[in-house]
């Protein structure tokens, strides 16, 4: 290995050490399955390795990696749709995967249920802001829109999330008051019971 190669590898290792946690987290909530998240993580850093000279320094590297991961995951979804195009067309629903158990009625269960009630675009900007700590300008870079647009979307997403969260929370309280416990309801179950059931039945990875 010549010196240039060694230097390149050193820079890549540094980038990997500094940013892998961010990419793991992002792929974890953005990909459809844990397996896809794992593949996306590897693909993102493979691309970063090949295009190391294009990866910006500092916090901009994180934004670059998120934008790359977002596209890798979009490609995964397209690939999956392609592989099972006909099945998808015949309305066979994807498998929800293994379960991540949230305690019934717990804030975390309500958070995830509320997130699922959001439109994907709203959910994305909300989580980029709240979980990835990106500014509206950085969100704009990741999702490919103007900063002012991202700011508007984020404002609306926060509002909608709060509405959904509070509605689910109040229904949960009402249900607990009415039943004294979270009994299993099927037909006619209220939304809160339903989303708790959904929470238990769906994995955090795939999260949304």
């Amino acid at each position, binding site marked *: 290995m010549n010196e240039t190669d060694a230097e390149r590898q050193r820079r890549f290792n540094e980038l990997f050490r500094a940013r892998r946690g961010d990419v793991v987290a992002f792929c974890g909530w953005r990909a459809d399955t844990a397996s896809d998240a794992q593949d996306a993580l590897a693909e993102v850093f493979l691309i970063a390795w090949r295009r190391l000279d294009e990866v910006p320094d500092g916090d901009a590297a994180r934004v670059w990696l998120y934008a790359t991961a977002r596209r890798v995951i979009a490609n995964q979804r397209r690939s999956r749709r392609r592989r099972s195009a*006909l099945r998808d*067309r015949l309305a066979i629903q994807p498998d929800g995967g293994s379960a991540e158990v949230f305690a019934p009625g717990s804030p975390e269960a309500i958070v995830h249920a509320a997130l699922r009630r959001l439109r994907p675009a709203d959910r994305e900007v909300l989580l980029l802001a709240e979980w990835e700590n990106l500014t509206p300008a950085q969100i704009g870079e990741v999702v490919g829109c103007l900063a002012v647009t991202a700011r508007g979307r984020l404002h609306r997403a926060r509002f909608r999330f709060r509405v959904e969260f509070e509605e689910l929370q109040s229904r949960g309280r009402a249900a607990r008051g009415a039943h004294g416990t979270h009994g299993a309801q099927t037909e006619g179950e209220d939304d809160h019971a339903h989303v708790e059931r959904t929470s238990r039945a769906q994995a955090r990875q795939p999260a949304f």
Partner: protein
Amino acid sequence: MPTSNALRELRRANPRSDPDFDRSLEATDDLANRIVRSSPVLPGDATRPRSPGRALGMRGRAPVRVGSAVLVAAAIVAAFVIVGRPGAGGIKSASAAVVQAAEATADSASSSGTATVAMTHDGEAWTHKTVQWDGTDLDVVDSSQGRQGNRELLVVDGVMYGQDPNGRWLTLGSPDSIDPGTGTTPDDYLAITHADVSGATLSQIVAGMTDLTTEQRDDGSTVYRGSVPAGLVATKDGFKEGESIRVFPFGYVAHDQAADPAALLDASITVGSDGLISELAVRWGEGGSAWTYTVTYTNLGSTGPIKAPDNAQPFPRRSP
């Protein structure tokens, strides 16, 4: 404005606060090393577009890359074997002969043809797919074990058809509804077949073949054999379930030895008595790990019209 309870709970639910998150990170400890080991950077990579979005287009990525450095290096050492070809009227290198065959094949295949793609593992059939094209009409049938006759794609006169689980034909509408960039739109299939038979893929393989030998067969065909870096045949790469993979044309994963782009695989190209390439075959591994990947071309320029299914029903709309 005070932070709402909802947003506080949302922030608390950040996956980074999950006790398992650190374990997820630990699982990636060796990833950087694996990436560096499995994917040496080639000079050709530096010429890729700067935009991550464009550069990430999976469709454009692999065929363009094709390890140009490997290609150039291999071409330099490619053995030129002096052979005489029937009807050639002279002496030419084996490489030149195959390239000429590729060009002739391209002319014949530009209108129609049939490609049969098969893989075997340990002597057993692994996958089998037939791709027919006639102009822009396309018929792709997967005949792999357990999927006999499963039609992946049928496009006639710009209309795409599919079969439901009961075998009834459905009109699925325009192929435009297939997302671009997935590698399997009708245009993608046509691009692959045309690239293969037009010499783009074959020329790269030929240029990369070393230790080239020829065998003249009684039926007038000629078989050119040599070694070729796996990266010239399985040009696409990526990761699957955490492992690096390479992918052959038509979407089949290159297993074992063929996953290493530098690994030398046994390759053969058969040129028929008509001067057209009739088969590309690649072999690697031994015993239980023996693999073959074969693309057979037939009816180039003479594949009959592809017919739309009779009695295809409109696709039922999914209720919201």
